[in-house]
Structure formats: structure tokens, C-alpha cells
């Protein structure tokens, strides 16, 4: 798209047309940073829910002065001859769009009780209230799905809503996994929907990645700072697989790694740290891979916090026979301060053997870490065991 914009600079300079963007990302502020970096300053509308239904980006659409679509997929070379130089008649009926409020759409949904009506209500709740009404929106998407199991858009949008809640509300347990499951179910309905597929690939294993999604952010920040500007602050920092390069092969574990507690001697922690798991994709084919996302939250009721100066946090995965983990030993980067209380994240990938049978396979693992109770309280070295449930198709 920046190439298109640049190629038509002269015509734009003459004021021959205006530009509007409609973005298809989960996190719109990342696109805001991209535009700041590329010095693109046209108005942008946010379509994280993919209500426009496009299944490909970038897509350039020419709309005449009366609001009528004239070209879909216009090339910059055709802009002048095929669009700007043409005269389009004013249509007889050109009423401006009227927006139905969530309250009105809620009444309609209660009245007609169709899958589409519940989805429309959920969309409006998210548009108007964002996180405030997200619980009702999610339950309305579920109503839409229950009424029509082929409503692909409802599955996808429910996934977007679950991920929003995971990002923005602490303790939204299981929401990331639910997002992954719903995006997967949307894709089962329409495997050709590439915007939906991209949402899974954004968080999925490197083998399935078309490209790194957000590795440009570092360059963008550098470029913006060099111009003497302040980069747009991101609400959710991209991490792990969102920054990773695609891989051609699954990496097998290095022989140099050492298991932290093979004899199971470290005392167990049962309440200081809560672990949440999400697998992307949620259902994996034999011979395929899934990316496991771990979210580690401290128990606030115990006033728990991390100790970062004693040693590393280590996460060890023990894949079953025939399975592979990459990496098998994970050491999340610790904060610089001696004691902190942030949410920690860790990611790894699991490769499923081609002989795997359908069903749920349990992959065990554990983590060891330094955690402290209370302000200036005792810091302890603790172990916590966990399992990752992987659904094989």
C-alpha cells in the first residue's frame, strides 16, 4: 500500500482524490505506528472484526464522489485514465448511511432471534463500548453461533473479542485459548478467508508463517526517533512468534541443554503463580505443529512478586515419545529491577508425529522460578508442574 500511495503522489498533490484506509488488524495502534513511520497521514477506519468481509489485503477500491464503487483492485497505473478522468452521474437515491445503535439492534435481536441479528448486536456493542460491554458481546456471538453453526464471521469475531478481553482484562482466564479455537472454527467454515487465517498465523508456529508480522516495529521506532518524533505507544507489545521469522524446518532440541530439576526435588508452588495456556492452532494435524503460549500471572492476594537477581526462570517441556518441543528449555527474559510483578509470557512449539491418533494428548512440563511473598518478604525457589492439552485432528 505505501508503494501505491507513493506512485500516485503527483495526482494526490493536485487534490484530484482523497485517500481513506480501512485496516484489518487485531491491534490498530500498531498500524498507527506504521503510518507514523511511513508518514502516511490519511484518515483510517478500524475493522478488527472484519465486518467488511474482505479476505485479502491490500485491496484498493475506487469510490466516486457519490459513494458508488467504481473499481475493486485498481492499479496505480490506471488511476487517472480509468477513474479520475471519468464523469459519474449522480444516483437518484443516495441516502447517507444511518447507524443503528446497539440498543436498537438488541431489540431487533430479541424480536427476530436470528444468528445474524445477534451478531449485529455484538458488533455494535464492541463498536460503541469496547471492553465495557465485551462480556455481553461474547455471549451474543455465542448465541449467533448456536443458531447457525455455519456462521463463519460470528466465530471469527468471537475470537477477536476473546483476544481483546485477554489483552485488556487481567484474569481473563482461557480467553486466548478460546480466541484460538474460534479462529480455527471460522477457518473450518471458510478455509479461503486469508484475513482469518492471518490471525491464526500471527500467533501460530513458524512453519505456518508467511512472514514475520511485526519485526518492522523496531525499525519503525528507530526511524521515528531519528526524525525527532515520539513513536506511537503500543498498548500491547508484540512478542514471541509475532516477531519471529518463518522456519522451513522444525528445530530439534540441542544436546547441550540441562534439565533444571530431573529428580523432582524442588518444592512445589501451588498458589503464588497461575499458569494459563493457549495453543495456536487449537486443533493440529498429525505431522503439523502448534505454538504454545504461556501466560504467567502472580497471585495478587498473596502480594507475590518475582525476584530477578537470584537466577533465571526455567521452563522444561517433556514431550511424549515421537513428539518434539522447540525449545525444550525456555528461559524468559527477566526485568532489570530486582523485584517486579509483571505478567510473564513464554512460548514454545510442539511438533506432532505423523503417527499421532486423533484426540487430546497431554504434554507435561514444569517451571522453576524465584518468587517472593509480601513487601520485602521471603523469596523462595519453587517448581510448578503443568500440562499442555493438544487436540489432534
Amino acid at each position, binding site marked *: 500500500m505505501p508503494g501505491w500511495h507513493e506512485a500516485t503522489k503527483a495526482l494526490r498533490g493536485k487534490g484530484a482524490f482523497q485517500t481513506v484506509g480501512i485496516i484489518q488488524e487485531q491491534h490498530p495502534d500498531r*498500524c498507527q505506528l506504521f503510518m507514523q513511520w511511513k508518514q502516511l497521514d490519511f484518515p483510517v477506519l478500524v475493522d478488527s472484526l472484519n465486518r*467488511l*468481509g474482505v479476505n485479502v489485503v*491490500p485491496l484498493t477500491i*475506487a469510490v466516486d464522489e457519490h459513494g458508488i464503487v467504481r473499481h475493486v483492485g485498481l492499479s496505480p497505473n490506471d488511476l487517472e485514465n480509468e477513474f479520475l478522468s471519468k464523469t459519474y452521474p449522480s444516483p437518484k437515491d443516495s441516502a447517507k448511511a444511518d447507524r443503528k445503535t446497539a440498543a436498537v439492534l438488541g431489540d431487533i435481536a430479541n424480536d427476530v432471534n436470528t444468528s445474524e441479528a445477534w451478531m449485529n448486536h455484538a458488533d455494535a456493542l464492541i463498536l460503541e463500548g469496547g471492553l465495557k460491554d465485551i462480556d455481553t458481546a461474547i455471549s451474543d456471538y455465542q448465541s449467533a453461533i448456536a443458531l447457525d453453526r455455519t456462521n463463519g464471521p460470528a466465530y471469527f469475531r468471537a475470537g477477536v473479542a476473546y483476544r481483546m478481553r485477554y489483552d485488556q482484562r487481567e484474569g481473563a482466564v482461557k480467553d486466548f485459548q478460546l480466541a484460538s479455537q474460534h479462529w480455527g472454527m471460522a477457518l473450518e467454515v471458510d478455509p479461503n478467508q486469508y484475513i482469518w487465517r492471518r490471525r491464526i498465523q500471527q500467533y501460530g508456529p513458524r512453519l505456518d508463517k508467511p512472514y514475520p508480522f511485526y519485526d518492522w516495529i523496531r525499525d519503525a521506532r528507530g526511524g521515528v526517533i531519528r526524525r525527532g518524533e515520539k513513536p506511537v505507544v503500543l498498548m500491547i507489545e508484540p512478542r514471541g512468534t509475532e516477531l519471529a521469522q518463518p522456519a522451513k524446518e522444525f528445530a530439534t532440541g540441542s544436546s547441550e541443554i540441562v534439565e533444571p530439576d530431573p529428580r523432582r526435588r524442588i518444592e512445589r508452588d501451588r498458589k503464588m503463580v497461575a499458569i494459563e495456556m493457549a495453543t495456536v492452532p487449537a486443533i493440529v494435524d498429525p505431522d503439523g505443529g502448534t505454538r504454545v503460549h504461556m501466560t504467567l500471572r502472580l497471585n495478587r492476594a498473596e502480594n507475590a512478586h518475582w525476584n530477578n537477581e537470584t537466577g533465571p526462570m526455567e521452563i522444561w517441556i517433556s514431550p511424549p515419545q515421537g513428539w518434539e518441543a522447540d525449545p525444550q528449555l525456555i528461559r524468559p527474559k527477566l526485568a532489570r529491577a530486582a523485584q517486579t510483578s509483571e505478567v510473564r509470557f513464554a512460548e514454545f512449539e510442539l511438533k506432532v508425529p505423523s503417527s499421532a491418533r486423533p484426540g487430546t494428548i497431554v504434554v507435561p512440563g514444569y517451571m522453576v522460578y524465584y518468587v517472593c511473598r509480601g513487601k520485602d518478604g521471603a523469596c523462595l525457589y519453587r517448581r510448578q508442574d503443568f500440562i499442555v492439552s493438544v487436540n489432534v485432528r
Partner: protein
Amino acid sequence: MRVSAKVLISTLLSCTLVPTVLAQTSDSRIPQIEVGEEFPGLFFPSMKDGKLTSMSAFRGKKTIVHVFASW
């Protein structure tokens, strides 16, 4: 002969009814972007200030709409 002409005409007609855009989800609940028709009247939050805006707010001047993502 007449019959086959009719068949031919109806085939041609049904071809012209094939959506001009294949860049959208095939779902009746999705408003179609079609050449010769109004751009769908959906409202979206503006990235700048969150204000709900539809494409009809940009009428009065020829407009290029880029549907895109930063990745």
C-alpha cells in the same frame, strides 16, 4: 434453435450476476462491495479518535480506499 438461444442468454445473464468481487467472504451476512453499487454503509471507529464513521462521510470527492494491514 430458439431454446438454445434462450439458454445462451440466460447463461450470459447469470454470468453477469456473478459478484464482481471475489475478495470477500462468501456469506450472505457480509455486505457486498460491488462495482456500480454504493460502498457498504458500515460504521467503523476512526483510528485517530474512535469516532464511528462510515464511508458516506467522504462523499463529495473521488476516494481511493486502501484496505490493508501493517504486516
